């Protein structure tokens, strides 16, 4: 069983059950289906960050770099007025993102601890200003996606990305795939070594493992998943702009993952839903929602030692 904890199994069962049914109840309310889709996409992004920060031990404040790249690469690679195949281009984009993550990883992994936080922040800020100041990539306004890609596989076409419900299920699939991919990676020999090198780098190195290589591969996995989330987000809203890459974006994802319970992976889903849910409610409650949000974050840090997942586990595990 790749889901070791009871709490985890219960939460995921309830989550997927509800998630599968949401469009059935909200069929005619495309706003809420769209909102739910965005939360699912963010959950993919936050899970990929949770994997890096909580399990590999790479605290990055520049994860949004890859989120933005996923969107920008799509617009840059595809012709403006021709629908391309989604799956083919997703593979291209993920491959290029992985390559970029390799290069960035080689640079940033030379540092550690607080310097790693700062160098990842610096690189994503660089990318942010690169797109912000560029004329050919639309500057602050970003770029628009005029044609949504088609999604046929071997001539079979059962997904229409212009249909919010279809897009919703594509995003839910992304959540499932990301969850399984991370969980299986962590259960594997590779994952065990990665975790060992977080818990005790010296001993892991002494056992003959090249920590750098393991961290680099993990960094590439996490970053590529983030790029996929960014690609989906760009396709959902039909544009990409430098705001995808701000440090606030990275910071918010970090907040969601810490709130959910760092390193638990399923907690990332919980944290994303909670954060987005709170923000949505507060925005409707008052103009000064940021005050309520900030207060809620501060309260949760003070009260929950291991995030929401930790709290649930205290209730459900014996």
């Amino acid at each position, binding site marked *: 069983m790749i889901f070791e904890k009871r709490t985890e199994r219960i939460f995921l069962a309830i989550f997927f059950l509800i998630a599968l049914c949401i469009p059935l109840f909200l069929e005619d309310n495309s706003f809420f289906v769209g909102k739910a889709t965005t939360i699912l996409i963010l959950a993919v992004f936050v899970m990929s960050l949770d994997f890096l920060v909580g399990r590999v031990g790479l605290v990055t404040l520049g994860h949004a770099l890859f989120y933005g790249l996923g969107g920008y690469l799509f617009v840059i690679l595809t012709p403006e007025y021709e629908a391309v195949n989604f799956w083919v281009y997703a593979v291209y984009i993920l491959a290029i993102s992985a390559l970029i993550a390799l290069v960035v990883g080689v640079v940033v992994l030379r*540092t550690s601890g607080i310097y790693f936080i700062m160098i990842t922040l610096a*690189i994503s800020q*660089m990318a942010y200003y690169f797109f912000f100041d560029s004329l050919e990539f639309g500057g602050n306004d970003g770029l628009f996606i005029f044609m949504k890609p088609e999604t046929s596989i071997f001539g079979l076409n059962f997904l229409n990305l212009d249909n919010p419900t279809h897009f919703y299920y594509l995003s839910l699939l992304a959540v499932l795939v990301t969850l399984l991919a991370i969980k299986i990676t962590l259960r594997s020999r590779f994952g065990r070594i990665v975790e060992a090198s977080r818990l005790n780098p010296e001993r892991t190195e002494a056992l003959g493992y090249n920590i750098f290589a393991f961290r680099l591969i993990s960094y590439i996995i996490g970053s590529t998943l983030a790029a996929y989330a960014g690609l989906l987000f760009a396709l959902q809203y039909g544009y990409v702009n430098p705001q995808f890459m701000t440090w606030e974006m990275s910071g918010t994802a970090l907040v969601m993952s810490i709130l959910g319970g760092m390193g638990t992976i399923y907690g990332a889903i919980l944290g994303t839903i909670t954060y987005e849910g709170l923000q949505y409610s507060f925005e409707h409650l008052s103009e000064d929602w940021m005050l309520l949000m900030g207060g809620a974050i501060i309260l949760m840090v003070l009260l929950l030692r291991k995030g929401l997942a930790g709290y649930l586990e205290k209730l459900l595990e014996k």
Partner: protein
Amino acid sequence: MSTELIFVQLVNGIQYGLLLFLIASGLTLVFGVMGILNLAHGSMYMVGAYLVWYFVSITGSFTLSALLSAVIALGLGILIERVLIQRLYNRNHLDQVLLTIGMIFVFNSLQSILWGNDPYGVAVPDTLGGSVPFTDNSSYPIYRIFAALICIAIAAALYFVVSKTRLGMLIRAGESNREMVEALGVNIKSLYTIVFAIGVMLAAVSGIIAAPMRSIVPGMGESVLITCFVVVVIGGMGSIKGAFVGALLVGVISTFAAVLMPSMSNMIIYIFMILVLLVKPQGLFAK
């Protein structure tokens, strides 16, 4: 570029660098002594600028407003440390990051509730108005020179306190071995409160000094925060000397970049920081 222009830009860069140092010094002090990365540090800079603007609009006196704002900032620092930060000393660093992000939300929101989202400006005090001639056809505003001098004075005071006084001795001791300092009978809790409050006040004082030179706008804290990160990382986290050198480098480099290659100017300090970290992964003055 004429020599004259180079000279003017150099002075501009140094003046900007000195201001950056003042902001960054608080950040690096708190990190060095307490091991806390205060992401809300930029918000304290913003608080300083807004407070001084608010008091000037009531009293009309810049000096009085500046003093009042600095004292309020000191009190705010003590309050935040006592009520919030103190509860997280035994917790994960990421919890501290989360807490200070929550504080950014709260301060940004309070700013918008109390003072709205319009940009404001503070007039340069009359006695410091005008400018001194540089060469035949250029001059430099007196207030900027005054601001630079204040920054230098505070830097010198900080150096004196840290290296020559009993408090400074305790701060340095607390940096290298917290348990030992505690075992020797020093109340490390109140030491931390003092250090954090000084950090907050340094950020607020920077905001006060910057107020007549820059526009006071929402979000001013975050942009300065990221620049400060660059400064302290280049210098070496926790090192005040490093922050000084880092701030001057960043100040001069970004000022020249804005003139020489405007399209790259925003990126250049990050490129510089990455280069520094590639050569020295712990910054220039690593401990």
